[in-house]
């Protein structure tokens, strides 16, 4: 008998990790993505492998997830990260006032850190604002925002998963209150067809709310865009963070020959309609220059907006107050819809952990005993995603 | 011949041609108004070193030209068999050209 078939909606980091996890557990998996893989939020994020330090004070659940996944990813995806570490720097007295809570948070969340002197910080990062008052080194890193998910997808493919790009879900098929599959439109031919499924997983990221609505259920998701700015030149080697409460433009991630400054934060209803706010470009420059003054003169490569998929329901003003943690919704328990699971929230860094939780729910619903193996299995290189398959 | 060797030969023959052709043009066409009459040419070619140089020039220019043509034809995504036929055909053509050129010398 064929193993159960799971359709995963969304070819971003989450969908990729879910497909990998389920395929490793022996299930048949089909990923449907309306555009190119990683064309939603995934490819556009900061490219930051979080240590969790960013959330160590206000969002400790997310911080703990980050550090755990950070360590796992280094093991299963060697070659996808610049192992440059991150530096949290205090520039102002206000930042210094935040320092004790920050260090305490790092301890609480189990994030390894080392405080270094301002002199040492400047020796490591010559372009750093010389006004630096304190610096803490943490295991942040730079990740390749597209190629890490490609490795999940490539490995899933090698275990039989099918990845259907340019394939948009138009309808979630139901029999009574049970989801039985999806009707999709292939934008390559503009033909529609149905894909039967034992379980449908909604891994739509910022679009998860729209997808859930197709099954008549509501998930408390708040798309929260931010503007990021990439400038020419690599002004720092480590990931530089401002040591203060999360704010605008307080992280500079070196990426290839560029430096990426981000982000701002607001909330929208429709993640497809993200107007890139031109005035935020200047803001990013201004805040970035507080960390690295030379940024002010750096030439702009690109500015863009990306929608974070944050969990929270109406009322959020900027998205900063919402947690970066994730939640897996089994809609049978929550809404009385069988065969439909939504994974929402989270970060690129925690995608594997999100997938583990989701796949646990899926196999339990299917009555299978298949343990998670994604903590150990080393991923195929991203280039394997493009291998010709029958 | 390995592709690297081919490239080297094409480069080498090309550089050699720069000198041989300069010489060929200078003595045949520019120096002292050039070789104008039939008798001039016969007298010129009677010198052994001229025969050697002109022969070398003929062989080099033929090789360089046909190897160049082959390089262009091989850019056309030929099958291995077609590429072999091209090489063979051009080799035969080259031999014919050289034979004809050498025969021309003997008629003088």
């Amino acid at each position, binding site marked *: 008998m064929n193993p159960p078939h799971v359709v995963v909606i969304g070819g971003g980091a989450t969908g990729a990790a879910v497909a990998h996890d389920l395929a490793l557990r022996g299930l048949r998996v*089909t990923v449907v993505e309306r555009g190119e893989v990683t064309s939603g939020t995934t490819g556009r994020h900061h490219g930051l492998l979080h240590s969790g330090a960013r959330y160590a004070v206000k969002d400790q659940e997310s911080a703990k997830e980050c550090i755990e996944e950070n360590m796992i990813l280094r093991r299963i995806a060697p070659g996808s990260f610049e192992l440059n570490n991150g530096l949290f720097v205090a520039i102002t007295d206000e930042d210094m006032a935040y320092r004790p809570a920050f260090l305490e948070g790092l301890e609480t969340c189990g994030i390894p850190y080392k405080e270094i002197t301002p002199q040492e910080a400047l020796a490591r990062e010559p372009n750093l604002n010389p006004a630096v008052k304190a610096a803490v080194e943490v295991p942040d890193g730079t990740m390749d925002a597209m190629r890490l998910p490609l490795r999940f997808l490539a490995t899933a493919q090698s275990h039989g998963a099918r990845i259907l790009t340019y394939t948009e879900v138009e309808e979630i098929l139901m029999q009574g209150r049970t989801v039985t599959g999806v009707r999709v439109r*292939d934008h*390559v*031919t503009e*033909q*529609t*067809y*149905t*894909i*039967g499924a034992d379980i449908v997983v909604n891994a739509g990221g910022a679009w998860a709310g729209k997808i859930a609505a197709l099954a008549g259920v509501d998930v408390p998701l708040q798309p929260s865009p931010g503007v990021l700015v990439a400038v020419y030149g690599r002004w720092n080697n480590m990931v530089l963070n401002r040591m203060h409460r999360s704010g605008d433009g307080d992280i500079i991630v070196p990426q290839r020959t560029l430096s990426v400054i981000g982000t701002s934060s607001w909330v929208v209803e429709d993640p497809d309609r993200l107007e890139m706010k031109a005035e935020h470009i200047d803001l990013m420059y201004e805040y970035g220059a507080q960390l690295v003054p030379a940024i002010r003169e750096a030439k702009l490569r690109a500015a863009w907006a990306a929608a974070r998929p944050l969990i929270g329901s109406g009322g959020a003003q900027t998205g900063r107050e919402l947690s970066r943690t994730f939640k897996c919704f089994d809609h049978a328990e929550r809404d009385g819809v069988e065969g439909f699971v939504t994974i929402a929230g989270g970060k690129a860094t925690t995608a594997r952990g999100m997938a583990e939780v989701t796949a646990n729910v899926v196999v339990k619903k299917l009555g299978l005993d298949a343990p998670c193996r994604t903590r150990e299995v080393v991923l195929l290189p991203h280039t394997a995603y493009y291998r010709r398959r029958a | 011949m390995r592709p690297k060797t081919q*490239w080297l030969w094409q*480069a080498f023959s*090309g*550089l050699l*041609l*720069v000198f041989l*052709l300069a010489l060929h043009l200078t003595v045949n066409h*520019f120096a002292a108004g050039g070789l*104008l*009459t*039939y*008798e001039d*040419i016969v007298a010129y070619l009677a010198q052994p070193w001229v025969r050697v140089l002109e022969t070398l020039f003929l062989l080099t*220019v*033929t090789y360089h*030209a*046909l190897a*160049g*043509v082959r390089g*262009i034809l091989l*850019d*056309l*995504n030929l099958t291995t068999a077609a590429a072999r036929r091209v090489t063979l055909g051009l080799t035969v053509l080259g031999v014919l*050209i050289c034979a*004809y*050129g050498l*025969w*021309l010398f003997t*008629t*003088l």
Partner: protein
Amino acid sequence: MNAEEYRRPAPRLPAPQAKEWLAFSKRGVGGWAFLLHRLTGLVLVFYLFLHLAVLSALARGPQAYQAMLAFMDSPLIVALEVGLIATIAFHALNGIRLVLMGFGVGVRAHKALFWVAFVLAAGLTALAALAMF
């Protein structure tokens, strides 16, 4: 239609075409150098055959040769010969540039070297033209 019946058509394969060598609109300096080198080379191959054919007059004796020479003195032929000199000069000088690049010399300066070859070839042609007219 269900997933088992549906099949996305294979991507449309581009046919390999020699006219890609002539994609004029987008050329940079290196592309023009490539195209000119190729075209001048083909012209010279053609001329090699022509030259050998014309010289067959030598084999047909002094009269045939003198007749050929007389024909060669026409202004049109001399003009064509100037063109030939230009072709040879460019092909030779750009050829030197290509050999140098193959040995890793002047790769970063390949555009400047192209112009050097081009200007030198033009100069040589002008000198040759002066000598010939």
